[in-house]
């Protein structure tokens, strides 16, 4: 019940199911590498994600998932194509896009010399929360994620699980309608992974638009309503988990993924 509260009112879910909270059209990103020359990290990717659903990005390391999420969160500027988040173009108005998203990944750390409370106050302030509004959102986050026991402890002194709970609180403090999770369980133990996955399921229940990037098939099968397979920067398949299996003519998502990613036995990818 409390988990539902922190994830906000179901205003996002009230949008029509077909409302496209995240949309890309032929989105591409190229980098210049002094050794390799031009590297095309993402090539003509078109996706749509909807409120109340979890959109999975399935791909191996280096497939282009993080680059795609970085473009959607305005950290990287697309080389070509378009992207909209919450109806706002990521290039035209990046500030408004950033105000409507939450981003969580295991590679994003907390400030070690700030306490959990100070981290939340800091990020709340960055998102324009102050005074009573900040206090209310913080109280809700603290209670829901059981942060009270270590709230005034420096983040450097927290356990991995405690840090992860503070990170979640930071991500949803401003009640964003769109949530990006970039391999959020990488490196976590089974208990902490479970907490994250439960949280993502709660976000879906509360009408958030969730984009979840992973290379772990079991997580994708459990969480994702829609899955897109991305490999070497290009889309290789899309649909529900069942649809992907059927597209590839395989019985498991893992096998379907490997087929779509042109995997050849012997460890060499085409």
């Amino acid at each position, binding site marked *: 019940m409390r988990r539902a509260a922190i994830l906000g009112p179901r205003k996002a879910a009230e949008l029509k199911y077909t409302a496209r909270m995240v949309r890309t059209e032929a989105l591409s990103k190229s980098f210049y590498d002094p050794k390799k020359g031009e590297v095309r990290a993402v090539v003509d990717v078109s996706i749509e994600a909807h409120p109340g659903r979890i959109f999975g990005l399935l791909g191996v390391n280096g497939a282009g998932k993080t680059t795609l999420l970085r473009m959607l969160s305005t*950290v990287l500027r697309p080389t070509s194509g378009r992207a909209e988040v919450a109806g706002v173009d990521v290039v035209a108005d990046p500030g408004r896009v950033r105000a409507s998203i939450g*981003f969580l990944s295991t590679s*994003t750390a907390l400030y070690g*010399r700030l306490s959990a409370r*100070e981290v939340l106050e*800091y*990020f709340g302030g*960055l998102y324009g929360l102050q005074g009573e509004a900040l206090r209310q959102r913080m109280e809700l986050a603290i209670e829901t994620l059981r942060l009270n026991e270590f709230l005034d402890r420096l983040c450097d002194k927290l356990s991995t699980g405690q840090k992860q709970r503070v990170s979640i609180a*930071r991500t949803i403090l401003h009640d964003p309608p769109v949530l990006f999770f970039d391999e959020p369980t990488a490196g976590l133990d089974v208990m902490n992974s479970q907490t994250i996955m439960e949280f993502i399921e709660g976000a879906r229940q509360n009408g958030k638009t969730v984009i979840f990037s992973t290379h772990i098939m079991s997580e994708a099968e459990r969480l994702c309503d829609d899955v897109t397979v991305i490999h070497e920067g290009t889309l290789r398949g899309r649909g529900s988990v069942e649809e992907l299996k059927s597209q590839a003519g395989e019985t498991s998502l893992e096998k379907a993924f490997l087929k779509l990613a042109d995997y050849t036995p012997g460890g060499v990818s085409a």
Partner: protein
Amino acid sequence: MKLIQHVFSKELREMFRDKRVITGAFLGPVILIIFLLTLFGFLDKAVKEPSIGKIGVVQGGEKSPLIQALSLGLKAEVDVVPTLQEGRQRLRQSQVKILFHVVPRKIEGAAQEGQEMTAYFDRNEQVALIAAQAAQAAVQKQNSVMVQQSLQGAGLSPDLSEPVMFRIENESASRGLGASTIVSLLPYLIIIWAFYGGFSIVSDLVAGEKERGTLETLLISPIRRIEIVWGKFIALSIVCLLSSLSSLVGVLIVGILPIGLAKTLFPDGIQMGIGPILAITATLVPLVAFFSGLLLAISAFAKNMRECQTYLTLVSFLVLIPAIFSQFIGFTDLGKATWVQFAPILNSSVVIRDALLNKLNGQALLICMAVNILLALVMLRIVVRMFHREEILVRT
């Protein structure tokens, strides 16, 4: 503005919780200057009142009034040696620092008998050199007295012994700290710590945030990148400024420490006028802004903390060289040269030195401030540009 203040408060809070900042930026300069000044004070005292231990005198010379005066003046024990050869042997064995050989000398027409005094010592022994110089000064004085007595005896004016008189009058306008011998060292230390104060923390500010992944979280929030830069820049500038002023705190501590050094180092006390304080502050604030911009640019450019430390070490030489040179500017007339007024770091050192000496040149101060403000703005612009270049900001 509100978000800049928000970032600034968070950065400052984090910095003040970092032991590296407390020890490196604040305690470091205080301890270093206390150590340096204590050393400086003891050396100064040692030069003015050398402790020579024993002076050797070849038998017969120990009764000379000059030798007795010297042994009293140098607080040295007289070691009488039977022969010159034996004395030189003791000198080589370091049993005595200096050996005097006094032989009577007949001077025709003189009222009294003269003496020929030879000092034997190792020129590489500083203390012996000082003792020899003291002996030479005492002999000159003695000669003057003897000549005056001879002139008087001949019915002539004793002033004839010194037809040309030479006097030194101190016309220094500086009082207090400015009158101290450490005035050439202080600008150097103030400037060095304005740079090194930020050294300990700057790699954490951007390169460290890249490495830990916190920068991406910040970039994803609605704050504008220029606001992030300003927040970090102001926090870093405050640490650099406080670090620089910490050297003055060190001076103050030495001034009040009951170790008898204050009188040697600051014969005129350590008070400073409001004018020099304002001039030093006016020089220091834009200089600190320039240093903070430079440090932040390095941190923003580096991929990670290790790379940042490497760049910082290289750049620190660019700061150290003019700062070291500035210590010796008082021996030349370069302080007045126009090019020095435009030379970054060197100009600040000259202005701080002039302010301490109460000889502030308004034009030099204005040029120095303008140069530092311009450099600070250029550095800030570079950092803001870097914060908009994803290939610099997102690379790890």
